[in-house]
C-alpha cells in the first residue's frame, strides 16, 4: 500500500463575506430619474449615449442623466451622493 503523506494547504486566508441587501425597487420607471453611470472605460461614453437615446425613443417618460466618476477605478463618493440625492435608479457600465 502506498504511503500516505500529510501536506499543507497553500492557500491564504479569505475575508468574511457580509451580506448586503438590494435596494427596494420602484414599480416602474415613468417619471423617475435614472442615472447612466459611464465608468470611463474606453468607448463606454458612446455606449451610455446610445442607452440614453434608447430610453428617449422607447421610454420617454424616464428621465435619464449621464454621469461620470471623477476618475476610472475610483469610488467617487461625491458622484454617489449626487445620484443618491437626485436619482431613483442607476445603470452602471460598461467595461471593455
Amino acid at each position: 500500500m502506498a504511503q500516505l503523506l500529510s501536506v499543507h494547504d497553500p492557500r491564504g486566508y479569505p475575508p468574511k463575506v457580509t451580506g448586503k441587501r438590494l435596494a427596494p425597487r420602484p414599480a416602474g420607471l415613468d417619471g423617475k430619474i435614472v442615472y447612466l453611470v459611464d465608468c470611463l472605460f474606453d468607448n463606454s461614453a458612446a455606449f451610455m449615449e446610445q442607452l440614453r437615446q434608447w430610453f428617449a425613443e422607447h421610454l420617454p417618460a424616464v428621465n435619464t442623466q449621464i454621469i461620470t466618476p471623477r476618475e476610472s477605478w475610483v469610488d467617487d463618493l461625491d458622484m454617489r451622493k449626487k445620484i443618491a440625492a437626485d436619482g431613483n435608479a442607476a445603470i452602471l457600465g460598461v467595461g471593455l
Partner: protein
Amino acid sequence: MPSVAVHTHVFARVAKSTARLRGIPTLRQAFVPQPVVGRTPPELRAYIEGSDQVSGRPFMQEVIDGLTRPLDDADLTGATFERTTPRLVAPDTEDNLRQLFLDNRWTDFLPIVLPTEERVAAMLKATSQPPDKVVGRMRAGNFRETWEYTVEKVAVNAVMAGARPEYFPVILALAASNTTSRQGSTTSMTCLSVVNGPVRHEIGMNCGIGALGPYSHANTTIGRAYSLLSQNGQGGSVPGETYMGALGNPLAYSLAFAENEERSPWQPLHVQKGFKPTDSTVSVFVGLRYVQEGFGPRDTWEAKFRRCLAATAYLPPLVVLDPIVARLFQSRGIGSKQDLIDWCAENARLPARDYWDDQWMQTLVRPRAAAGVEPYATKLKAAPDDIVQMYEPGDINVVVVGGETQGAWKIFGANYVTTVSVDAWR
C-alpha cells in the same frame, strides 16, 4: 439605490463571482457582447437592442426588469458566510496529492515539491518570524476581495516552488510587498523582482551570465515562489474568474534576479531607494507587457533608444543593462543612472495624438487628465501634433545586471512599486 451593472459577456463569471464575494449574489447584472471598445454607435445600439448574452432575454428587458422587479428573500438578506482554509489537506498518496494540487489549480502546471510538514518546518527554520505572523495581503484585482497569508503559508509556497530554506527571507520580503504578481488584469501584467545587497551572494543568486533566464536555482525558485504565493495567497488565479489576461504572460512563471553591483559603475538600485549598501533588499516592479532590447550603445544609440522608449508605451521604462553597456554609456557622457534616467525622460516623446490613442491611456489616464491631475492635464490640452513627454524622471529606473559576454540591454515597461528589506525577515 436600485441599480443594474452592465458588463460584456466574457466577464460574466468574474462579475457574478465578485458580486457573491461582496455579499450580494443576486446583484442584478446585464451582459452585452464583447467588445465595446472599437464599436461604432450603431453597433453599440445593436448591442442594446439585442439579447443579453447570458440570459438570452432582450438586453433592455433584463435592464428594466433588474431595476423594477420586486425583491425576494435572497435579495433582502444577501449572503453572509465565513470561509477558512485548512492548515493541512487530508492525507493521501503522493500521486493523489499531486492530482489534487493540479485539480485545484494550486500549481503553475510545472511539477512541484509537495509541501510536507517536514519540508515546511525546515523552511520555517530559516526565519526568526513566528509561523502564524501575518506577512501581507494580496488581491487579484482592484475590486476583488483581499486575502491574507502567514509566514507558514509563504513557506508552503516556497517549498512547492523548490526553494531552499536560505532563500526564505527574500521570499518573505516579496510576500511583504503586498503586491501580487498574478493580477487578474486583462493586460496580462506581472511582476519582476530585483535583489540587492549581501544576500545575493549569501544564497548564490545569479547577477551575471543568464541572470534573467533559467540558470540559477535561487533566481528561478525565488521568482517561482513569489508567483505561486501570489496565486494561492490571494485565493486563486483562474482564467475567466480571477484571471482575465487576454494573452497571458510567460514572465509570470518566474522573474527574479540580482543586480550586478560589483561590476556596475553606478549606484545600486536599493541605495537609490534609500537603503544602505550593506542592506539586503528586494524591489518589485509591475507591468512587463512590453520588452524592447538591443546592443550597444553605438553611434546611433539615441535614435534607437527614442524608438524603443516610444514603443514601450505606456508603462515607464525599467532599463536593464549589462555592465558593458553601463560603462559604454559612461564613455559617452552618461555618468550615472540618474543621467540616463533624465535622458530617457527628456527623449521619450510622442505626438499627443499617438500618446492618447491607446486603450490604457483612454481608460486609466485620460479620466485623471480630465479631472485636472498633472502632468496629464497639460498633455490633454496639447494639440494632436504637439509633442508630449511620456514619462517623468521619477517614473524611470535603471538596473545593471549581466555577465559581460555582450553589450546587451532591455527596456521593460514596468512601474516601480516598492523596495522591501530582506533583513527584516531573516
